[in-house]
């Protein structure tokens, strides 16, 4: 029998490991990948996105770019410049938050790595502001350690990477506000954000923007400390033929965790939105309070949305709810606007903006609004 595209890709990754940061211990990833079954077309986690298109996509030409910045007290260290102490730290934390079984594609990341960066956020008087921009466009990796009690705003602007894996360790009592801005691109992309949130810590992530021919975003947030607070917001507007697949998993692994997920998607002509939002409550995670809403607007006759909100609950002291809708703009609201003199295009724009704004929250950066075509 012929090897599938997934198997061929895996074998090639095993054979062609990079020499970047040669001191990295790649054995665990190599072993995990050798044992892993990479996603095949139509498998449950990739039901509406064909992974073969990602395996087969051209690897972008390597660009020497490292756009990562922060204030002076924050350490931003490219892997290639890491000293012995930082190498040790990287060895200790890299892949530690990853659920390799659930995200087998992440196993190829350190084998094929083009650019990695370590960011350490110490506790300081004022919240730190960090920017994580272009890391070269190939296989990218960021490891962000937010130390206990630290406060930080991390703004990410990926530039069409083939694969970007961001690991976040949010220490006890720390606060991380994470903004991911994703403009339209022509690339086939895979993103994985894997966050581990400590006791009493707050992690708020907002991922806003558009699509590409194929963009898959996995967000895995494990609330591993009691009393953690998680908020996930995502708003997207998909232009013609774009395909965006967002999978969010929030794991309540400790008691008294509060989590919120809000997704709003507007889907244009021949575009496709896939949204999978999961709430998982572990047996000991009593006192859980978790909600998710996912709404999609189909703005053209051939637009499609595939939504799958999931609840998986193994504790009983819980308050969990989710809701999902798919449809067109409300016809009455549209007429109301038109009866006040707005033409149909302007009325639709106004209503789409209002719809997306529900996922933006009060503190949405203007850049996010601009990406969504919401300049007012």
């Amino acid at each position, binding site marked *: 029998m012929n090897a599938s595209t997934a198997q061929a890709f895996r074998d090639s990754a095993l054979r062609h490991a990079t020499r970047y940061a040669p001191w990295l211990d790649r054995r665990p990833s190599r072993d995990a990948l050798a044992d892993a079954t990479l996603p095949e077309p139509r498998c449950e986690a990739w039901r509406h996105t064909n992974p073969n298109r990602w395996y087969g996509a051209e690897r972008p030409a390597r660009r020497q770019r490292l756009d990562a910045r922060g204030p002076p007290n924050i350490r931003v260290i490219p892997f290639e410049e890491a000293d012995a102490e930082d190498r040790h730290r990287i060895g200790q934390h890299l892949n530690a938050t990853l659920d390799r079984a659930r995200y087998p594609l992440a196993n190829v990341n350190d084998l094929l790595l083009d650019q990695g960066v370590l960011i350490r956020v110490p506790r300081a008087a004022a919240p730190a502001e960090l920017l994580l921009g272009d890391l070269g466009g190939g296989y990218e990796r960021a490891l962000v350690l937010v130390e206990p009690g630290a406060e930080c705003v991390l703004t990410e602007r990926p530039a069409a990477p083939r694969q970007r894996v961001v690991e976040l360790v949010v220490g006890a009592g720390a606060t991380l506000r994470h903004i991911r801005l994703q403009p339209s691109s022509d690339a086939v992309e895979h993103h994985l954000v894997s966050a581990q949130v400590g006791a009493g810590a707050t992690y708020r992530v907002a991922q806003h923007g558009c699509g590409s021919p194929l963009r898959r975003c996995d967000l895995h947030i494990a609330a591993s400390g009691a009393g953690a607070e998680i908020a996930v917001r995502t708003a997207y507007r998909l232009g013609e033929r774009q395909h965006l697949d967002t999978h969010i998993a929030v794991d309540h692994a400790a008691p008294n965790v509060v989590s919120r997920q809000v997704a709003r998607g507007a889907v244009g002509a021949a575009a496709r939105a896939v949204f999978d939002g999961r709430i998982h409550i572990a047996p000991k995670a009593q006192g859980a309070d978790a909600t998710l809403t996912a709404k999609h607007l189909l703005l053209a006759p051939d637009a499609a949305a595939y939504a799958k909100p999931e609840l998986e609950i193994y504790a009983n002291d819980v308050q969990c709810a989710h809701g999902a809708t798919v449809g067109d703009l*409300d*016809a009455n609201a549209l*007429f*109301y606007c038109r*009866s006040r*003199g707005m033409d149909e295009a302007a009325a639709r724009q106004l209503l789409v903006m209002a719809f997306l704004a529900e996922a933006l929250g009060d503190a949405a950066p203007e850049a996010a609004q601009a990406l969504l075509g919401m300049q007012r």
Partner: protein
Amino acid sequence: MLRIENLHANAGDEPILRGVNLVVRPGEVHALMGPNGSGKSTLANVIAGRPGYDVTAGSVSLDGVDLLALPPEERAQQGVFMAFQYPIEIPGVSNMEFLKAALDSRNAAQGRPELSAVQFLKLARAAAERLGLGPEFGKRGVNEGFSGGEKKRNEILQMLLLEPRLALLDETDSGLDIDSLGTVAAGVNAFAGEDNAIVLVTHYARLLEHIVPDHVHVLVAGRIARSGDKSFALEIEAKGYGWLTAPA
């Protein structure tokens, strides 16, 4: 100004209007009364261009322009304004944002300059104050979580800002307490002038104590059964609609 001739219209498959004729001149206030289901609200909605109604015969023109040929927004730009019987809630769109978008559309269509943000705010705040809508009003979503009275006052506010040529007030008095009724009526009376006209659609004569009509029409089974002056409204108040039948 407004000329309706032999207007027939269906809601879905059901014929509602069966030959309405009406002429409204500048400076006039008309009251359109009638029992439930007589077609009053349908007439207002057909003039405003609401989807779901089919005009099967007849014509409607405003200042000589055939309204029926225009999409709803162009009717609005020509000066048609309908205050909705059930104002629509639009969560996420603030009242100010909505008003500005509406006003900008009208100004652009009529070749008038766009208002600056400061000019607009001044206008909108003054109008909101006049209608007793609090300072938070501007930031709230359009009609979102508004009481019945607040929604109706918001309709009148929009009318004051948009300065239409023809205002169709569809059951604006329904669901109002006596204070709100007074506020709304004062707003309408302030608006009424030599250059515009008002058509009040109402089931009860109560509103007509506050806004005095020049002409009163009663619609029965999709046609105007009888017309008169303001005293006719009092007669209806006393005798009900039962004695009026559709013209043959």
